[in-house]
């Protein structure tokens, strides 16, 4: 069966510091991969999605970036964090098929920028 791993689970970073969140999916090939952010009271916001290695689509302009160096690896980065980057970040995957594009989520990473 497919599993998704995301780390670190929690981190506290100072303003202006870099960020790297990593996500890997096991048990499937060529998945679509996603990064979402969940801010308090604001629901889930799609940040990036990827349909293949090196292919990244950005949904929201910001100081974050994403990369997909391997088929089942997705990385969320920032060179300089802002206070507004605080939130709960969720990696997700899907494999489109005849019954639709069902998205499955990882356990999330709590980021606090101080």
């Amino acid at each position, binding site marked *: 069966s497919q599993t998704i791993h995301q780390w670190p689970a929690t981190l506290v970073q100072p303003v202006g510091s870099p960020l790297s969140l990593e996500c890997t999916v096991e048990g499937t090939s060529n998945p679509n991969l996603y990064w979402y952010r969940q801010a308090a009271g604001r629901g889930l916001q*799609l940040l990036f999605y990827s349909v293949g290695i090196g292919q990244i689509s950005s949904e929201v302009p910001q100081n974050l970036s994403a990369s997909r160096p391997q088929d089942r690896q997705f990385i969320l980065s920032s060179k300089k964090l802002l206070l507004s980057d605080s939130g709960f970040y969720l990696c997700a995957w899907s494999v489109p098929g005849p019954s*639709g594009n069902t998205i499955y989520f990882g356990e*999330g990473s709590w980021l606090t920028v101080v």
Partner: protein
Amino acid sequence: AQSVTQPDIHITVSEGASLELRCNYSYGATPYLFWYVQSPGQGLQLLLKYFSGDTLVQGIKGFEAEFKRSQSSFNLRKPSVHWSDAAEYFCAVSSGAGSYQLTFGKGTKLSVIP
């Protein structure tokens, strides 16, 4: 553009009572509909999904949802709530099998009284 409305921000029910969480969507064609559950500090878990066919969909943990096109609704139900069902519930809509965009409602927080 598609949208999802969850009218109830917070619902409290007694353990053993029935539950119905409301979800209304806006989309021109037949939508792909999902319900997810999120426990505090955790990722989102898929409860059930509707793509086509029978409008009453069974999910995990004893949940079901009914798609009503005339009302643009996809309400989630459970006949008898358990204390472990306390969580936040998200309804989501996608525009099609190949769509990468999953639009979420802002969630309904469920509290369960013993």
